[in-house]
C-alpha cells in the first residue's frame, strides 16, 4: 500500500528526529567538570523574584537574590538570628536609645565602582524616608513600614503610619554614620539585619531612576526605572548578570569583593513553581538545590545516594486560634478544655515527618524571651469534659472548626489531616466538631483573620530575629481573629518593644509568654524545621531560620 508508505515517511522521520535529539543530549551542566572556582550552581525557586531593589521587595524570592547582591550595616549570624557586623564593623546606642552610631568598614566599593561610605548610607536612608506617592503603598515599601513606620511627608492617599521611627542620618566622616530615631526601639537593630535595609549605589539609583513610579488605573505602583530589573548595584559577593523573566536569573562572582570571595563562579536561579517538577529537576541534575521540600518527598530524597537534605532551624509557629468573640470561647474554662482536648504530640509524631516539635508557646525556642516555664496542656480528655461541666455547659459542646484547603505551610504541611486528628481528639473530649473548610487564599484568610471563624488552624513564619515578629504580630493590639481585649498583655508587649536593653526585654517577653499561655487565646501546636534539598556535591550551604543564606560560601565538589 503505497499511501501508507507516504504517510509513514513523515512519522518515521519525526521519530528519527526525536531519537536524534535525544542522542545529541549532553546532560546540562551536571555531568561536565562543573566544580571548583569555575562552577555554576542552579537553584530551583518556587517563583520568579519581583524586583531586585531590596527596600521595594517583600517576597522571599526577591529577598533571597537581593541578599547575595546587596549588604546592609548588619546581618544575622550565620545560621542564627542575632545581628552581627556586615558593612558596619561596630555600633553603639546613645544612653537615651535614640541615636545609634555605626563605624563603617572602609575600602568597600559598589558593583558600579562607586565608593561605599557614610554618605552612601545616609543617601539610602534618606531615599527610603523621602519616598512619596505610590512608593508609600504598603505593598511597595512593606518592610520600611514594618520597622520604621511612616515617611517624611505622608501622602494623603497612602495607608502608611503617620509617624516614623526614623528622624535623620548624619555622616560626620566617611566611616562614621549616626542614625537618629524619634524614640528608643529595640527591634531596630534586628530589623536592620533584614535584606530590605541594604545599600545600593547612589549613582546607579539615580542613573536608572529607581524611584520613578506612577500609579496605574488599578492603583498599582508601576516602577518606570530599570535599577531593580536590569541594573541593581550593591556591595555583595555576587553581581547581577541577566534576568530572563520566568526563565532564569543569573548572578556572578564579584571579583572585587571586600571580603572572602564567593567560591562559585555563577549562581542561576530558576523558577519552577511545581514541587514534583523541582524534585525531578534535582534528580535529573538540571538543578543542584531547591527550597520548600514537601514532607512527602523527604523519604525519596533521603533514599537517593546522590541527594542530601538540609534542615532550616525552626522559626515558625502553627496554632489553633480560639476566637473569643464567639461564645462560649469567651469562657476561659472552655478554652482550657479545648487545650486539654487536643493531642499535639500525636499530631507531631504522625504528620510532620520527624521535622516538627510541639510548640509550648506562641514563639519558637530559638529567640530570646522564650521560656519553658509556661502552663502546658497535656492531652487529657476527661479533664476537658470536667472543665466543660464546670463551665455549666451541656455535653457535647457544638463548635465550628475551620481548616484551609489547597495549601501547605511549613508549620502545617497537611492542614486537612491535622484538622482531622484534632477534631477526632476533641470529639472524645466533650466537644462536637463541625468541620468547615475553605481555599487558603483569599477565602480562608478572609474568614479567619476577620473573626468569622470560632476555631481555626493558622500560623506564622517569623520575619526577623525578634520576639515582636511573633508575639507583637499576634497580641500587641486587638485583632479580630482572636477577638479579645486584654490591656495587660497589650501593655506588656508594647513595653517590651520600647525597651532597648535585651536583658530587660527578655524578662518582659517571658512574662508575656506566661500570661498568654494562661489566658489561652489559642493553642500553639507545632514548630517545624523546613527542609532544603541539594545534590550531594553541594557543600557549604548553611540554612538560616530567617532564610538569609549566603551562596558565597557554597561550593560544588565531586
Amino acid at each position, binding site marked *: 500500500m503505497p499511501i501508507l508508505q507516504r504517510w509513514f515517511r513523515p512519522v518515521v522521520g519525526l521519530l528519527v528526529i526525536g531519537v536524534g535529539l535525544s542522542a545529541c543530549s549532553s546532560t546540562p551542566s551536571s555531568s561536565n567538570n562543573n566544580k571548583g572556582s569555575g562552577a555554576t550552581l542552579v537553584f530551583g525557586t518556587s517563583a520568579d523574584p519581583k524586583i531586585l531593589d531590596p527596600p521595594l521587595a517583600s517576597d522571599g524570592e526577591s529577598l533571597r537574590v537581593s541578599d547575595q547582591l546587596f549588604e546592609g550595616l548588619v546581618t544575622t549570624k550565620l545560621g542564627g538570628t542575632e545581628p552581627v557586623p556586615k558593612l558596619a564593623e561596630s555600633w553603639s546606642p546613645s544612653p537615651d536609645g535614640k541615636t545609634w552610631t555605626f563605624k563603617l568598614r572602609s575600602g568597600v566599593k559598589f558593583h558600579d565602582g562607586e565608593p561605599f561610605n557614610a554618605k552612601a548610607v545616609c543617601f539610602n536612608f534618606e531615599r527610603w524616608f523621602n519616598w512619596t506617592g505610590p512608593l508609600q503603598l504598603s505593598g511597595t515599601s512593606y518592610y520600611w513600614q514594618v520597622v520604621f513606620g511612616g515617611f517624611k511627608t505622608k501622602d494623603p492617599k497612602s*495607608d502608611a503610619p503617620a509617624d516614623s521611627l526614623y528622624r535623620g542620618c548624619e555622616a560626620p566622616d566617611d566611616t562614621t554614620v549616626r542614625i537618629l530615631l524619634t524614640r528608643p526601639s529595640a527591634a531596630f537593630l534586628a530589623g536592620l539585619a533584614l535584606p530590605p535595609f541594604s545599600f545600593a549605589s547612589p549613582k546607579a539609583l539615580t542613573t536608572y531612576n529607581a524611584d520613578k513610579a506612577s500609579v496605574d*488605573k488599578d492603583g498599582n505602583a508601576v516602577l518606570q526605572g530599570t535599577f531593580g530589573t536590569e541594573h541593581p548595584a550593591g556591595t555583595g559577593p555576587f553581581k547581577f548578570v541577566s534576568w530572563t523573566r*520566568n526563565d532564569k536569573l543569573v548572578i556572578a562572582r564579584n571579583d572585587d569583593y571586600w571580603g572572602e570571595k564567593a567560591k562559585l563562579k555563577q549562581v542561576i536561579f530558576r523558577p519552577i*513553581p511545581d514541587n514534583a517538577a523541582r524534585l525531578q529537576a534535582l534528580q535529573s541534575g538540571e538543578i543542584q538545590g531547591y527550597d520548600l521540600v514537601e514532607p512527602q518527598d523527604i523519604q525519596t530524597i533521603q533514599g537517593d545516594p546522590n541527594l542530601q537534605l538540609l534542615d532550616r532551624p525552626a522559626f515558625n509557629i502553627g496554632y489553633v486560634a480560639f476566637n473569643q468573640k464567639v461564645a462560649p470561647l469567651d469562657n476561659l474554662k472552655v478554652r482550657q478544655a479545648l487545650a486539654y482536648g487536643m493531642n499535639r504530640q500525636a499530631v507531631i509524631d504522625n504528620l510532620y515527618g520527624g521535622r516538627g516539635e510541639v510548640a509550648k508557646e506562641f514563639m519558637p525556642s530559638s529567640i530570646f524571651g522564650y521560656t519553658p516555664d509556661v502552663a502546658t496542656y497535656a492531652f487529657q480528655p476527661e479533664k476537658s469534659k470536667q472543665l466543660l461541666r464546670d463551665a455549666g455547659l451541656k455535653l457535647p459542646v457544638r463548635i465550628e472548626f475551620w481548616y484551609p484547603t489547597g495549601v501547605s505551610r511549613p508549620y502545617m504541611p497537611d492542614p486537612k489531616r491535622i484538622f482531622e486528628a484534632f477534631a477526632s481528639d476533641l470529639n472524645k473530649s466533650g466537644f462536637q466538631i463541625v468541620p468547615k473548610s475553605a481555599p487558603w487564599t483569599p477565602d480562608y484568610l478572609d474568614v479567619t483573620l476577620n473573626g468569622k471563624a470560632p476555631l481555626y488552624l493558622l*500560623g506564622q513564619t517569623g520575619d526577623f530575629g525578634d520576639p515582636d515578629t511573633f508575639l507583637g504580630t499576634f497580641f500587641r493590639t486587638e485583632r479580630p481573629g482572636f477577638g479579645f481585649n486584654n490591656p495587660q498583655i497589650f501593655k506588656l508587649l508594647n513595653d517590651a518593644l520600647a525597651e532597648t536593653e535585651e536583658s530587660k526585654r527578655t524578662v518582659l517577653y517571658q512574662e508575656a509568654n506566661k500570661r498568654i499561655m494562661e489566658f489561652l487565646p489559642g493553642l500553639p501546636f507545632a514548630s517545624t524545621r523546613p527542609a532544603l534539598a541539594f545534590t550531594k556535591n553541594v557543600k557549604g550551604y548553611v540554612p538560616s531560620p530567617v532564610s538569609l543564606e549566603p551562596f558565597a560560601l557554597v561550593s560544588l565538589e565531586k
Partner: protein
Amino acid sequence: MSYVTRRLLLLVPILLGVSLLVFVWIRALPGGPAQGLLGERTTPEAVQALERQYGLNRPLYVQYGRYLDSLVHLQLGTSITSRRPVAEEIRRRFPATAELALAAMAVAVAAGIPLGFLAAKRHHRAFDQLSLVGSLLGISIPVFFLALLLKYLFAVRLGWLPSLGRLDVTTDIAHPTNFYTIDAVLAGSPAALLDALRHLVLPAIALGTIPLAIITRITRAAVLDVMNEDYVRTARAKGIARRLVDRRHILRNALLPVSTVIGLQIGLLLSGAILTETVFAWGGMGTWIFDAVRFRDYPVLQGGILFLVIVFVLVNLVVDLSYALIDPRIRYR
C-alpha cells in the same frame, strides 16, 4: 461587506459580553486580591487600605467603566501580584503557550491522521482495534500523570531529554519574538535551536496525546464514511490508481470534519495548558491565569482572558476559512 469583515465585526459584541462576564465573575468570587497579597499578615485595616488603593471600594459600575475606558485605550493594566504590565506578560507568555500548542498539535496531526486512516483501511482488524484502545487510553490518561512519567523515564532515568524549561540555563540568546525556536534561528545558533527543540519534545508529547487520540478517532470515522460513498466506488470502477483514490477522493473529503476538530483543539491548546505548563515549568498563559484566579489578580484575569477569547475567535475564523481550501464547494461571500 465581506464575510471576513462581518466575522471580525462580530468580535466587538463578543468581547463586550466576555469582558462583562469576566468582570462580574471574578468579583463574584469570595475574597479579593488584598487577602491574596497579604497572606497570614492580613488585618482588616490593611485589606481596606489595599482596596482603597486599587479602587475596589468603588461601586461596580464605576469600576467597570474605568476598565472599559482603559481597554479602549488598549491598556490592560498591571498585575497586582507580579507588578508587571499585563500586556508585557502576554507578549512574553503567549509565545511560550503558542509554541507548545503548535508543537503538540504537530505531534497530534502527524501521528493522528495516518493512524486514523490506517485504522479505517483496516476496519475490524487488529490494527483498528488497537488504535481504538490506544485512543481511549490517550483520552483518559491524565496529562499530569503522563508528563511525570515521561519526565521520570526520559529525564531522570535515561537523562536523554531535559525535564523542564524552554532552554538550558547555559544557553544565552536574545528573545526578540519569545518563540524560542524562532529566536534561535534569528540568533543564527543551531545549538540553541536544537536545545529549544529538545525542550519541546516531552511537553509536546504529553500535551499532544489528547488531540492525538481525538484526531485518530475522527479521522477513522470520517474515512470510513467517505470510503462507502458512491463517488469512491465510481472512481475505483474507473480504474483510478488506488493511492490516487485514497488521497484525492477519500482523504481530502474526510479531512473536512478533521480540520474542524484540529481548529477547536488548537483553540483549546492556545488558551494554555495549566497542568503541562506547571509540570514542565513552561511559563505560559495557563499557569499564569490559574495563579491569577487563586490570588484574585483582577487585571491579569481581565486582560488575560480577554486576550485568549480574541485568539480563540480568530483561530475559529481561520478554521472556517480553511474549509474553502479543502472543499471547493464552500465559498464565502
